[in-house]
């Protein structure tokens, strides 16, 4: 059902594939009584000891019930994400995706952790001014008056993050009115991509990458499942393209110097030197053009012809035959798609690399079908590193007297070599509107802390056709203000200008009103109704008058003279963003620090990825400290030996090495930007994140590198299974698992119970992004333990994604990501060994853990073959205001108690109560576990195994189904579906050791037989 109902014709419902909103969602959304109520009637409760009920209860607070507010997360990672904020008693406790957005109701791990940003104990509690002793408290009026005095026309810069929608208009107008210069800047911007498409097709902006429609996927390094462009949306699309049950599975080739999270999901890896991605793209394009022909190929013939595979092979460090084979496959594909490099492949010639990929897309026919220029995710203007370098010069020369920074952290996010920090320190008036004491704020002399975006009004253009609004979901925790309101006050206090709108909310609403009245015919509902429903829905589909711009090859591209990079020898550096810290914004969130990286599985630190062959002569092992030096600097961090990186490449993740920013971020790891010399791409001005020559030396000491996975191989123990794609296609429709195994003889469970809760996890869909893990932390009050305890193996995560490497026949390897959580076994080894019945079997087949009864013998953990039980070695703290995030439905555990996945029993029980009130049983769709809800690729399905029609029952019988460590006969409630790969996997006999205990004919009735 559409949450907007009939009154809201323009509310989009078909943005993703799973647009239908359940009745329950609708009811939840109905709880919203406009944002005014949200902003005023509820706030963080006084943590005092009053248990007196409200005299006049607020309308939208139902004790013990979450109220979901639709809002928008603009800083939750690379993409804008639509979400519902679940608010309990005035405090937001969980973020879940809004299905009306391209993120299809899912959120990344980083986006979910925005809660920890909101409740960060290290936020700036109120306005501050600096005197000789440091920051001192100040009143808002005083601070605004002071700052207004600094706004000297022509000598003031407003530096913000990149924004779209009303904020972009607002900043531009504010700058105009006050005579300031507005510079929006995003550290990991997409300038080169946008510039390249402008050159190629005359269409700037980001193309829409419709991976879901592709039958052949090639990426030149973009970490599109982790940290590039729109990972949640693209992961969903990627899963669609590889939906083996749909009878198709697009082969995916990753080209680049290292395997990122995305690269680990590839079927094939073409390892090329960093910075030569564009060259290889040209060689592939030239071959495709030769094979495929066509108008574009003919026009580009001259440009491409000199890039034969043989010509680029040596520079790129790749065999020509592999380029030819790839070109052959691309030329013969119906709907190929080629994705560009991300920052890890962004060298000095990044625009050319993007242009090369754009041309490759054109010659293989992807432009206009799978790649649609100009209609992709909207990105606001972002100044390039070159512009920032220019700003540095102006700051140094004294031409800039005042810098106001809001939503950006250039002191941290620009390479040291650019000298921003020094120049900024020399500016007379430095004002920060940041909500956190980040590096830039700490170097400022006035702090006017802004509301967190979950406490703010706002809007954004998600895509040219989708607009969304953000509303505050709770009252500000600290003495902070909406950033635009602060700017309005400053403008007013200068006395030189005034805005019509009394505050930002009015400004925002006025903008929407005028657009609405302009675009919608006169007989439409009143704007007030539209606005009210928009706030419930979160997003609206905007009618677009013009059709998509037709992408035709621009003349500039036809005779473009590509430059050949120089042949380099020795080691080359590349830096990359991770899904959890991204550009460093996740660094003070303990969930993100403790979320194992998809590649290294390391937490709480930086690491240096080195190929074992490169490490060997230096005697380096994983965890040994290694010094990495470039012409401009050096960093020392623990080595991580990784066979997914080229021997001539060294890679370091971004995001750590903060000198400020709070307790979890500060002094942790290294900032890889210190190694960059600030080279920029000549055309787009984008910073070169890769390609610097680098030297490494072993320090001779071991560092701390907490790696949360014991072995990289599952030793073929029926844990992470992979199937060849042809086997998987052949097996579609077959059955492997007999559900009776789970349902019958299940020890102690009640045969009369209508429920046996079960889960299926599709390893073909799982990308290892970690969204489920963070969802679980948020839902279940799981504490983080810090680096020291994590290194000792005391992590508390109920869910862990194991990353197993499987050998292939051609001496490569494939990766399978296996989320491992409590299997809720029918014959659970953990249960009988507990001396006090703390581990017991519920009538619905759950392995329950009774915290109050647990004395902490830990025998259950020893006896769990899946190693999913977690022990509270200490009582972990949730310092104020992080404690406000705790889910009141879930016990907070104390020291000495065992815990583990409960299958979100609190959600099960709520769904049962709701169903009982309606006189029925719980059905599919009534609820989801937190991990299932968060998964961007819908790899996790949860439900009732005793209902033969439930999705989980259907899936659990499937041809790829198996039980983890099935030979132990623990009768797990979780069924895994083997991953599918195009690689030449060693056929290890997955088919032989199936679990078909029953005769073949009995399979179809298996589920029914469960009763």
């Amino acid at each position, binding site marked *: 059902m559409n949450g907007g109902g009939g009154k809201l014709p323009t509310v989009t419902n078909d943005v993703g594939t799973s647009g239908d909103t359940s009745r329950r969602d609708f009811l939840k959304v109905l709880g919203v009584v406009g944002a005014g109520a949200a902003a005023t009637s509820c706030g963080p409760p006084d943590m005092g000891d009053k248990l007196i009920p409200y005299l006049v209860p607020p309308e939208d607070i139902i004790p013990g019930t979450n109220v979901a507010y639709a809002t928008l997360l603009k800083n939750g990672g690379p993409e804008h994400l639509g979400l519902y904020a679940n608010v309990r008693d005035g405090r937001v406790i969980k973020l879940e995706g809004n299905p009306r957005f391209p993120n299809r109701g899912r959120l990344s791990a980083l986006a979910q952790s925005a809660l920890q940003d909101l409740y960060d104990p290290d936020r700036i509690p109120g306005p501050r001014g600096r005197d000789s002793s440091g920051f001192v408290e100040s009143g808002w009026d005083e601070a605004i008056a002071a700052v207004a005095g600094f706004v000297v026309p022509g000598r003031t810069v407003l530096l913000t993050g990149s924004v779209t929608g009303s904020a972009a208009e607002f900043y531009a107008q504010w700058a105009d009115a006050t005579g300031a210069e507005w510079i929006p800047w995003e550290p990991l911007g997409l300038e080169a991509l946008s510039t390249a498409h402008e050159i190629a097709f005359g269409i700037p902006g980001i193309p829409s990458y419709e991976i879901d429609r592709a039958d052949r996927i090639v990426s030149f390094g973009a970490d599109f499942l982790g940290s590039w462009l729109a990972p949640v949306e693209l992961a969903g699309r990627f899963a669609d393209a590889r939906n083996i049950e749909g009878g198709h599975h697009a082969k995916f080739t990753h080209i680049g110097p290292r395997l990122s999270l995305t690269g680990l999901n590839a079927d094939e890896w073409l390892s090329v030197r960093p910075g030569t991605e564009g060259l290889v793209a040209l060689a592939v394009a030239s071959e495709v053009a030769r094979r495929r022909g066509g108008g574009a190929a003919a026009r580009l013939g001259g440009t491409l012809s000199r890039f034969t595979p043989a010509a680029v092979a040596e520079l790129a460090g790749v065999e020509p035959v592999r380029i030819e084979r790839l070109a052959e496959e691309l030329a013969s594909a119906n709907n190929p798609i080629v994705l560009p490099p991300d920052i890890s492949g962004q060298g000095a010639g990044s625009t050319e690399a993007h242009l090369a990929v754009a041309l490759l897309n054109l010659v293989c026919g992807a432009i206009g079908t799978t790649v649609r220029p100009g209609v992709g995710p909207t990105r606001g203007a972002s100044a390039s590193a070159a512009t920032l370098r220019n700003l540095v010069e102006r700051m140094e020369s004294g031409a800039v007297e005042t810098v106001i920074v809001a939503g950006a952290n250039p002191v941290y996010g620009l390479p040291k070599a650019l000298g921003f920090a020094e120049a900024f320190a020399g500016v007379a008036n430095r004002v920060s509107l940041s909500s956190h004491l980040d590096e830039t704020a700490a170097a400022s002399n006035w702090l006017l802390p802004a509301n967190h975006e979950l406490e703010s009004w706002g809007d954004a253009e998600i895509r040219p056709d989708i607009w969304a609004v953000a509303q505050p979901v709770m009252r500000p925790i600290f003495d902070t203000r909406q950033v635009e309101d602060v700017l309005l006050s400053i403008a007013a206090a200068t006395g030189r200008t005034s805005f019509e709108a009394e505050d930002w909310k009015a400004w925002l609403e006025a903008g929407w009103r005028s657009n609405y009245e302009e675009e919608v015919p006169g007989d439409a509902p009143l704007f007030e109704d539209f606005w009210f429903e928009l706030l419930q829905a979160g997003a609206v589909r905007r009618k677009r008058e013009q059709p998509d711009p037709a992408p035709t090859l621009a003349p500039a591209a036809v005779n473009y003279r590509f430059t050949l990079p120089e042949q380099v020898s020795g080691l080359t550096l590349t830096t990359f963003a991770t899904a959890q810290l991204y550009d460093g914004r996740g660094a003070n969130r303990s969930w993100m620090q403790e979320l194992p990286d998809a590649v290294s599985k390391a937490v709480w630190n930086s690491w240096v990825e080195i190929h074992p062959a490169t490490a060997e002569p230096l005697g380096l092992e994983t965890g040994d400290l290694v010094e990495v030096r470039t012409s401009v600097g050096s960093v020392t961090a623990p080595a991580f030996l990784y066979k997914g990186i080229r021997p001539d490449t060294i890679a370091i993740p971004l995001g750590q090495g903060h000198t400020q920013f709070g307790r979890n971020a500060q002094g942790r790891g290294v900032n890889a930007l210190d190694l960059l010399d600030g080279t920029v791409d000549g055309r787009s001005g984008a910073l070169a994140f890769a390609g610097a020559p680098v030297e490494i030396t072993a320090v001779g000491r071991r560092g701390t590198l907490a790696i949360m*996975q*014991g*072995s990289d*191989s*599952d*030793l*073929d*123990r029926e*844990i992470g299974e992979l199937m060849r794609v042809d086997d998987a296609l052949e097996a579609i429709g077959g059955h492997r698992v007999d559900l009776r195994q789970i349902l019958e003889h299940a020890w102690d469970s009640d045969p009369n119970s209508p429920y046996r809760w079960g889960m299926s996890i599709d390893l073909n869909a799982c990308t290892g992004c970690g969204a489920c893990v963070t969802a679980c932390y948020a839902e279940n009050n799981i504490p983080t333990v810090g680096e020291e*305890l994590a290194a*000792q*193996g*005391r*992590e508390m995560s109920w869910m*862990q994604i*194991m990353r*197993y490497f499987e050998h292939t026949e051609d001496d490569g390897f494939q990766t399978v990501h*296996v989320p*491992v959580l409590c299997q809720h076994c029918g014959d659970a*080894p953990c249960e*009988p*060994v*507990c*001396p*006090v*019945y703390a581990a017991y079997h519920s009538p619905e087949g759950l392995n329950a853990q009774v915290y109050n*009864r*647990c*004395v*902490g*013998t*830990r*025998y259950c*953990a*020893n*006896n769990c*073959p*899946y*190693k*999913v*039980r*977690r*022990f*509270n*070695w*200490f*009582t972990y703290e949730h310092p104020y205001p992080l404690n406000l995030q705790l889910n009141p439905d879930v016990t907070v555990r*104390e*020291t*000495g*108690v*065992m815990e583990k996945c409960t299958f979100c029993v609190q959600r099960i029980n709520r769904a049962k109560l709701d169903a009982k009130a309606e006189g029925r049983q719980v059905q599919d769709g009534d609820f989801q576990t937190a991990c299932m809800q968060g998964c961007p690729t819908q790899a996790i399905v949860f439900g009732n195994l005793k209902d033969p029609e439930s999705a989980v029952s259907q899936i659990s019988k499937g041809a790829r189904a198996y039980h983890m*460590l099935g030979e*132990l006969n623990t009768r797990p409630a979780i069924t895994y579906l083997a991953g599918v790969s195009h690689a030449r996997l060693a056929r290890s006999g997955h088919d032989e050791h199936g679990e078909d205990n029953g005769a073949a004919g009995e399979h179809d009735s298996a589920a029914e037989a469960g009763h």
Partner: protein
Amino acid sequence: MATAEIEVPREALPTLEQANDDISRPIYAPSWRYYLLLAICGVGILAGGTAWAIQVKNGIGMAGINNPVSWGVYIVTFVFWVGIAHSGTLISAVLYLTRSGWRTTINRAAEAMTIFAVMTAGLFPLIHLGRVWYFYYLVPYPSTRLLWPNFRSPLVWDMFAIGTYFTISLVFWYLGLIPDLAVLRDKFTGVKKKVYGTLALGWQGSVKDWSHYRRLYLYLAGIATPLVLSVHSVVSWDFAMGIVPGWHSTIFAPYFVAGAIFSGVAMVITIMIPLRWAFGLEKYITKYHFDNMAKLLLFTSLIVGYAYALEFFLAWWSNDPIEKESFAWRAYGFYAGPFWIMVFCNVVVPMSLWFKRTRNSLAALFAVTIFVNIGMWYERFVIIVTSLAHEYEPGGWGIYVPSTTEILILIGSFAWFFFWFLLFSRTLPVISIAEVKEHLAHEHEHGH
């Protein structure tokens, strides 16, 4: 045993009165050295106790245990002390029933050792609990929540097995002490006379007393004998009932029992050699006794060595890759050091006992038993820790390193054990006066 009795050296046979005096002499005049030892033990207990107190306050995380190795030094040391406790019952009950006369001079100390070892061992399940303040959940008491312990859990069996063993051992020991307490009552005056008198339960040494005493002693020996097998079998089931590769094995019960006797006998020798020297009991505890105990040590070493080999054989024979990997890792992985220490101490070193010269040299024998004590601690470490560190799910593998807290508590446990033993050695006769006199009387009658 007739053959054994022939070998008793006769030239030094003391009179019965001398025996009374010799054996009870230590009770009169503790020297400064005794108090020094007692003080050292006191400091050790204080250190261990403080470490425990801090652990209770801060959380069990003060120990080095983690995921996946949730049992570490505490359980290792628990099994170690339970093993030590074994020789007491074996020597007093089994050798009594088999009429092995050579037990006479060592059974008292061995039984005392049993009691104190169980008292030490019993602390560890508590120390190891995550929430020790709820330890009583393990006890079947009439709870208002109508909850009983889970009788399917080997940990509950364990509690009963050890509880039973402790009770029987204590009663058995006390019963044996009664005639000796009467001797002490008769030797002392004042408060001591009163205390010993009370404890002697009005023993008169009449024929009737002796007849009841002997009968009860026999019965208790009979009851205690199966416990030799049961206690450590049940302890072994703590592991064997688990599905952990390296634990889940049918050989565990006999393997553990043999190991327990092995370690118990070693500890008896370790203690008796200095005790004999300190208390001048050379006339009573002779090389003959040590020779016999050394042979028992050698025999059990062979069983233990066989069990080690058998574990590897079974892993290979099962052809289960998981089991095979677990054992290969045990010998060659991260914990190869402890494994080879175990093999060296428990299998290689005791082979020297094939030689009479080693058995008859107290210094050599003492050294061997020290090796065995260390080796047997490591055996439990190897079984528990290496198995847990490498279980089924390779992604979950992990390494455990003991923490300072655990080491302090381990040291404290030795201090606690020796503290009690020292108190015992100065308050009660370390050799059964009654049995020695019985033996001597027999010798005087038939030998001279």
